[in-house]
């Protein structure tokens, strides 16, 4: 192995360790944050007994979950029952690897380390563990794998509630993945590439995609909520209907793994939202391509704040909105989000073609601003004219049987 390859591998291992640790600690802190936010929204204080302001509560919960008794339901399929939490947990953790968390950091070293030998690295280091060429397609692909975990957990528990939860979850995730994938096509149209780095660069050159592709952002946000099984789409869990859905029969650390998986998915979706639609680590007004440690630090903080905002937003939605009924959920996915995303692809295609070929504008900034103007109109049409009980109706009329006048 060349010293360059060794240096690359060394840095990759270090980045893996850091991202893995940060995501797991972040998940632990998110469980606390969820309880705190829910408490504040209900005029309560939330956990504040363990550690200062309850900061050690996640540790206490972790210890409790590890020492609790593991229960296995009778007649459960033990192998799959044990496997299911891992199948939910591992894809969720993999996803954090492809997000660029900050501007590239220049790393230069030539060391002779014991056991490893000569290692060297020169030039900017991407702050993603793996800057994959397939970019967000990887996220779409791997995040769908967690549906296996949920469906298998539901089936192997041999409990009707779990099974219903697992089935609901599969149906829901498959429906919303379509809308989610389609909402990313306009991003691809403007970027021309699916890597996160290129998406960020396109937003640095133009304007943030949340302004130029607002409806895509909206569809992705709603589909992301559904993908993470958060309220108002938590039908797989639906405690008032299914006790706890697919993890009804789970206890102790196996149950915890589902929770960790859910929160890790939340982190990923939030980071994706920040990266794809809010410029990623891009700071407004900073156009230099990283280059210094300070730039990496500042952009890292910017990325953290953006992700944190969306994490808060998810909790905010969870503690504000009631759960959808199942037919409403399906109607929203199939009858509203997918047609909307499809129409929007068409609109953006025509607009981009018109801007480039008819108006002859090539500046990404001007193009972004024109698209922003278009989006203001589109949002008004969707949210104020069409959304009057037409797009998402609370309930549907009974269909008259054929041949009978309704």
């Amino acid at each position, binding site marked *: 192995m060349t010293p360059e390859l060794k240096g690359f591998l060394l840095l990759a291992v270090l980045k893996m360790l850091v991202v893995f640790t940060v995501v797991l600690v972040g998940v632990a802190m998110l469980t606390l944050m969820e309880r705190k936010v829910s*408490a504040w929204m209900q005029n309560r204080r939330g956990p504040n007994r363990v550690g200062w302001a309850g900061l050690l509560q996640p540790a206490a919960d972790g210890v409790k979950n590890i020492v609790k008794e593991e229960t296995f339901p009778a007649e459960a399929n033990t192998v799959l029952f044990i496997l299911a939490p891992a199948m939910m947990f591992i894809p969720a953790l993999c996803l954090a690897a492809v997000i660029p968390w900050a501007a590239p950091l220049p790393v230069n070293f030539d060391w002779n380390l014991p056991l490893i030998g000569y290692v060297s690295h020169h030039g900017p280091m991407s702050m993603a563990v793996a800057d994959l060429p397939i970019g967000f397609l990887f996220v779409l692909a791997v995040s769908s794998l967690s549906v296996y975990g949920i469906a298998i957990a539901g089936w192997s528990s041999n409990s009707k509630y779990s099974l219903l939860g697992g089935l609901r979850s599969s149906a829901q995730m498959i429906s919303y993945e379509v809308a989610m994938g389609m909402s990313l096509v306009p991003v691809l149209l403007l970027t021309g590439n699916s890597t996160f780095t290129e998406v960020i660069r396109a937003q640095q050159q133009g304007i943030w995609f949340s302004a130029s592709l607002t409806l895509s952002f909206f569809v992705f946000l709603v589909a992301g909520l559904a993908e993470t099984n958060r309220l108002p789409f938590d039908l797989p869990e639906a405690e008032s209907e299914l006790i706890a859905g697919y993890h009804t029969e789970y206890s102790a650390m196996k149950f915890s793994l589902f929770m960790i998986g859910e929160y890790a998915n939340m982190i990923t979706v939030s980071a994706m939202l920040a990266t794809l639609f809010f410029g990623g680590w891009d700071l407004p007004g900073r156009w230099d391509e990283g280059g210094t440690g300070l730039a990496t630090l500042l952009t890292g903080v910017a990325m953290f704040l953006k992700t944190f905002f969306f994490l808060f937003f998810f909790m905010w939605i969870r503690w504000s909105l009631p759960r959808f009924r199942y037919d409403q959920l399906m109607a929203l996915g199939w009858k509203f989000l997918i047609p909307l995303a499809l129409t929007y692809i068409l609109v953006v295609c025509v607009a981009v073609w018109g801007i480039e070929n008819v108006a002859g504008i090539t500046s990404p900034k001007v193009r972004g601003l024109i698209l922003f103007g278009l989006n203001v109109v589109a949002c008004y049409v969707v949210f104020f004219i069409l959304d009057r009980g037409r797009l998402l109706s609370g309930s549907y009329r009974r269909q008259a049987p054929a041949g009978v006048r309704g």
Partner: protein
Amino acid sequence: MAIGVKVMKRPDRETSYVRAALKGMALTFKHMFQPKVTMQYPEERSTADDRGSYSVAPRWRGTHRMLADEQGRSKCVACGLCPQICPANCIKLVPGEDEEGNRYPLIYEIDEFRCVFCGYCQEVCPEEAIHVGVHFENAEYSRDRFVYDLERLTSQTHSVSTLWDPADPRGQ
């Protein structure tokens, strides 16, 4: 579609999901900055009167208390009405009589585990001796500590319940 639901004709502004959702979210966000209502229990405690932020209702029926006269003896005359009326049969009373013919309880024990805190003993007592108290912190390390004897009942100091008066339901 699965369920035939009667659809009401409602004005547009009431049926818009997006606007209703935003309204709800604005409300929850506002609540984040409102004063918290949680009592921090071991540090803050409720008081029997209205002086603190939290108070126990004066007619709260908690663990018992035996009132004493000026000489420090219990007011109980061992008439036997309270074990008679007690629906849970938790009062054990063995009456005694001194040289002047005054009755007093030799043994007076209340099993607080059996007690249902109905307050009949306080209502029936002709001497206003036994009372249910405005008190709720009763933790003990062993079960037998929950049989309160006469000495313990007399040495309690918490305030006593005013019970519920049907003629004055709000206690005014």
